[in-house]
């Protein structure tokens, strides 16, 4: 695509340059001829005239060729710049279609097989099957929602942003999570300080929920959640004391549908959503080693809101 556009731009320019050069050459030839009119009859003058014209032709060609190279390079760069967003959008659509197909196959298979197996069963079997089918359909719908979000460019997405205290939100979300954590016999430590950012509260709650769910899936005994202002950023860390993530997998956990074998029942897109939300807030999400007994730390960094 880029090569085709470059070729087209260059061809148009080449035609213009050639036409212009031919016109210029013809004009020069005519002016010389009318100037030398009577003397042209003598052979030495005629030879000198043709020599001069040849030099003019060479000079024009020497200017034209580099000009065309410059234009070819410039059109390549321009084509690249103007097409990049389009190509990226097309790539996102393609990925969405592929991933939706991939992600929906499992719940659809579940629904089909459970529905068929329940045929002719008693009331208890039917109720059970309906419950499984409803669950599978809801999972599928949630997945489609997540994939639709991921298919958007995080840098130009409509977020409903206003100043909010990320530290207070982190503490609130973590406390909401407390009953679930205690049910599993895990300790949740919260250490959150005020940090004001320009954020979309619902999206940031979703980010924190995904991180907490992820930590809960892996933690052995303790999860630590912290939020601190650091220079011009607010930094949220969620640490757990699970098996840890080896360095070569640390980028891949943010890929959609990437599941490490050790991770039980992760949905596969939660961490991709985390990174998407962080980037939509001009921030970043990554994984590093935990500190003081923790093995894994998910780190979210968002710009602080400058307060006048």
């Amino acid at each position, binding site marked *: 695509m880029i090569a085709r556009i470059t070729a087209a731009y260059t061809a148009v320019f080449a035609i213009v340059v050639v036409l212009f050069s031919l016109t210029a050459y013809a004009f020069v030839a005519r002016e010389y001829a009318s100037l030398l009119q009577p003397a042209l009859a003598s052979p030495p003058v005629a030879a000198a005239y043709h020599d001069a014209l040849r030099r003019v032709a060479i000079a024009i060609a020497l200017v034209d060729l580099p000009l065309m190279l410059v234009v070819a390079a410039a059109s390549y760069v321009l084509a690249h710049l103007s097409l990049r967003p389009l190509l990226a959008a097309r790539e996102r659509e393609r990925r969405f279609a592929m991933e939706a197909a991939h992600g929906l196959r499992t719940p659809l298979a579940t629904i089909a097989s459970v529905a068929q197996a329940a045929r002719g069963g008693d009331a208890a079997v039917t109720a059970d099957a309906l419950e499984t089918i409803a669950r599978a359909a809801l999972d599928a719908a949630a997945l489609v929602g997540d994939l639709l979000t991921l298919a958007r460019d995080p840098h130009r997405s409509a977020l*409903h942003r206003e100043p909010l205290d990320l*530290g*207070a939100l982190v503490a609130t979300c973590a406390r909401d999570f407390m009953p679930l954590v205690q049910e599993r016999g895990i300790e949740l430590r919260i250490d959150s300080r005020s940090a*004001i950012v320009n954020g979309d509260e619902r999206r940031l709650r979703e980010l924190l929920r995904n991180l907490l769910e992820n930590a809960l899936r892996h933690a052995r005994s303790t999860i630590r959640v912290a939020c601190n202002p650091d220079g011009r950023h607010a930094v949220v860390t969620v640490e757990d004391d699970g098996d840890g993530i080896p360095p070569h997998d640390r980028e891949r956990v943010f890929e959609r549908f990437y599941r490490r074998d050790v991770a039980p029942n992760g949905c596969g897109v939660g961490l991709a959503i985390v990174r998407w939300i962080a980037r939509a807030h001009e921030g970043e999400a990554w994984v590093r080693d935990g500190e003081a007994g923790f093995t894994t730390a998910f780190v979210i960094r968002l710009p602080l*809101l400058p307060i006048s």
Partner: protein
Amino acid sequence: MRILVVEDNPAVARSVAAILERRTFAVELAADGDAGLERLLSGTYDVAIVDVMLPGRDGFSLVRAARAEGIGTPVLMLTARDAVEDRVHGLNSGADDYLVKPFAEEELLARVTALARRAERPFAQTIRAGALEIDVAARTARYAGRELRLGKTEFRLLEFLARNAGTAFTRAQLLERVWEYDFDGSSNVVDVYVSQLRRKLRAAGARAPIATVWGVGYKLEREP
């Protein structure tokens, strides 16, 4: 409790009604926007559940029209997609909450109960404090007749201070009651919003919009 469900897909409407009726709520159905608006304007419902995509008048316009008529019934919007634009649009047009279809039964019941509980408090629909006038249903605030353009949180803070005009609140109390945060630390997000509100109120002509009470926090005077 009486609930109005405005939904054009008969299968979804029937199942929403079945879920709610199982909890002994009284459910009435409307299949398009105009019929839904007509019912809602009768003002006899505790909660309305409104689909965004409706034949005729869409859900946003239905809610906006109802709010313009002063109907404060809490509205739960149903959207088909995870559409951020839908959500922002919906909340701006006066809906109280939104839910993405399809949803889990428990989720629907939790949202409906929460909205109903909020509506039970016998709150005035119009709050006045001096020249300040807040129309809770229409989500508009005016100072001396001039409309204040407020964000969602700004509106909630001003509404809270105006309901309790003359009473001072600490930052922690405001954070808990307006933001509904559970945070022990000190946060100056309250100050950020107070200064935004002060700026907007001053621009509308208020002289001493929100007072700082030394050692306590903030209050809105009865005559700001």
